[in-house]
């Protein structure tokens, strides 16, 4: 296969060097986000906010792999969805408390990510994407046929239960507090990973894999590690979502979910710290308002994909970052 075609622009905008100033700005944004998380439920509907936060965490996890590892997974619904099934099942049937159920779902996603990741990184580029998609489709058929997932019905009426066996999550405000905490910690973890030495090596691999190999890095171990981390955090988002909406269904493992998270990241800005949050906000809001148009949602999503790829590859946050000349 001809791999000789000149590639003018790397998939992700080349990272600008970060100064202490930039870190201070990012810290301010984190602080602002924390304040927003506290204030938002006073103004907006908490269930809508929780949906945004779950998908934002999902998109952040996905972006860790795509934006910093340079790996386009087209099967992230598998980790999101299987974690959501396990959390829902363990909370409903085994009666586990929500935090244990979420943890169990997250661990499931980590294990699945380890297995699928080990297979997928055996190929590169476009094949990697096709393999992740095919593996996720396998997970979808498993969910469709397995007894415990409830097939077409999914697992419904999952109890939110009592956090640590004490605090009831039936109240939306209590639930919101948990989701906001999970989201914020997840986001901080991803920020930490990106800026760690591990994250630096990842970026080096993304920008030039051969050079990273020649510098003596075991590229595949790094790729697998970031794949597992990404799957784990996607699972955390999926498991939390199952408890919030008291539902795990085939929608969560379907390939269209994998496409949706790609879209969120693309709209917000691949390879930016805050982009996926903006992307999730935009897409979830769009879907909430367009739900009445039925199948047109798919058409509109497709159009957004096409327009973003052709005209707006940096995404919202990527564009802002370029304008103010600071990495976001």
């Amino acid at each position: 296969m001809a791999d000789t075609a000149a590639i003018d622009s790397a998939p992700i905008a080349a990272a600008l060097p970060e100064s202490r100033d930039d870190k201070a700005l990012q810290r301010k944004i984190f602080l602002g986000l924390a304040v927003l998380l506290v204030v938002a439920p006073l103004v907006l509907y908490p269930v809508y906010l929780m949906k945004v936060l779950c998908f934002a965490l999902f998109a952040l996890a996905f972006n860790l792999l795509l934006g910093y590892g340079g790996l386009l997974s087209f099967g992230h619904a598998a980790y999101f969805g299987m974690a959501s099934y396990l959390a829902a099942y363990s909370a409903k049937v085994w009666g586990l408390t929500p935090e244990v159920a979420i943890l169990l779902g997250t661990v499931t996603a980590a294990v699945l990510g380890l297995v699928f990741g080990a297979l997928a990184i055996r190929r590169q580029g476009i094949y990697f994407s096709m393999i992740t998609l095919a593996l996720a489709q396998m997970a979808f058929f498993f969910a469709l046929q397995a007894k415990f997932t409830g097939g077409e019905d999914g697992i419904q009426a999952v109890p939110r239960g009592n956090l640590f066996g004490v605090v009831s999550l039936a109240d939306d405000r209590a639930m919101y507090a948990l989701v906001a905490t999970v989201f914020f910690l997840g986001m901080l973890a991803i920020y930490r990973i990106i800026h760690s030495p591990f994250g630096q090596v990842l970026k080096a691999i993304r920008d030039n894999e051969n050079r990273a190999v020649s510098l003596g890095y075991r590229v595949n171990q790094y790729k697998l590690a970031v794949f597992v981390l990404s799957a784990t955090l996607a699972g955390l988002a999926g498991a939390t979502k199952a408890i919030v909406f008291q539902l795990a269904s085939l929608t969560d493992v379907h390939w269209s979910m994998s496409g949706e998270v790609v879209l969120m990241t693309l709209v917000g800005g691949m390879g930016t710290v805050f982009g996926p949050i903006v992307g999730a906000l935009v897409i979830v809001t769009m879907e909430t308002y367009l739900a009445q148009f039925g199948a047109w949602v798919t058409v509109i999503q497709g159009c957004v994909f096409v327009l973003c790829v052709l005209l707006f590859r940096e995404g919202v946050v990527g564009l802002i970052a370029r304008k103010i000349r600071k990495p976001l």
Partner: protein
Amino acid sequence: MMTIFGVPTQALFGQLLLGLINGSFYAILSLGLAIIFGLLNIINFAHGALYMMGAFVAWMLLTYFGLGYWWALGLAPLVVGVFGIILERVLIARLYKLDHLYGLLLTFGLALIIQGLFRNQYGVSGLPYAIPAELSGGQRLPFMFLPNYRAWVVVASLAVCIATWLVIEKTKLGAYLRAATENPTLVQAFGVNVPLFLTLTYGFGVALAGFAGVLAAPIYSVNPNMGADIIIVVFAVVVIGGMGSILGSVITGFALGLVEGLTKVFYPEASSTVIFVIMVLVLLVKPAGLFGRTA
């Protein structure tokens, strides 16, 4: 009644035939994907949607214009091919200098749009399309009943695959194509209009998908989701076979269809996942794919 391993021969050969038919579609679709990828370096996610479009064009020709199956077999690939050429000129051509992943994302978006539009217009229940009168009925073979139409699908797909292979391997046009796949810049320096070649190749690749759609229309109902279901399996087929060889992708397609058919007989629960399982095994044993060259 004759049985093999406790399975009636009628059921066994029936499923094998069905597998061979699915295999025909896998072969034609992965062939198109391989040709497009070879030259354009783009994985055409819209391939499934264009296959579905081929089936719908056949249905529309019959319903709105009264043009039957044989007309559709010629016209539908043409319509899909021209549509593909427009897509390539207007949208895809803008991405050649970018990373591969943008091509995948763009064509994924296109697939969503095409599928969504057809779903809005025709619903998801599927529309019937009759087998042409010339091919109705079947042959009573000693071990099974062979419907004529199904035999025709296998023969027609094989013929198209072999014809495509001959054009690419044995004609001057095919030589240009192979050369441009290896080194587009050099070929352009020799005075070949490479951009035109890219456009025509994409058109031809998706026309193949449209042709498969027409073949599929009388077997499966014409349904907006038919492309989405098959494209992921075809991706797995492509990973298994590797896209380096035309004949390789054809053989892989047919073989995997047969394996899927066999699984339906002996272990039906696994029939929807068996191709993915084989993909996993191939990745473990021969990561570059059965016919792939190691990069």
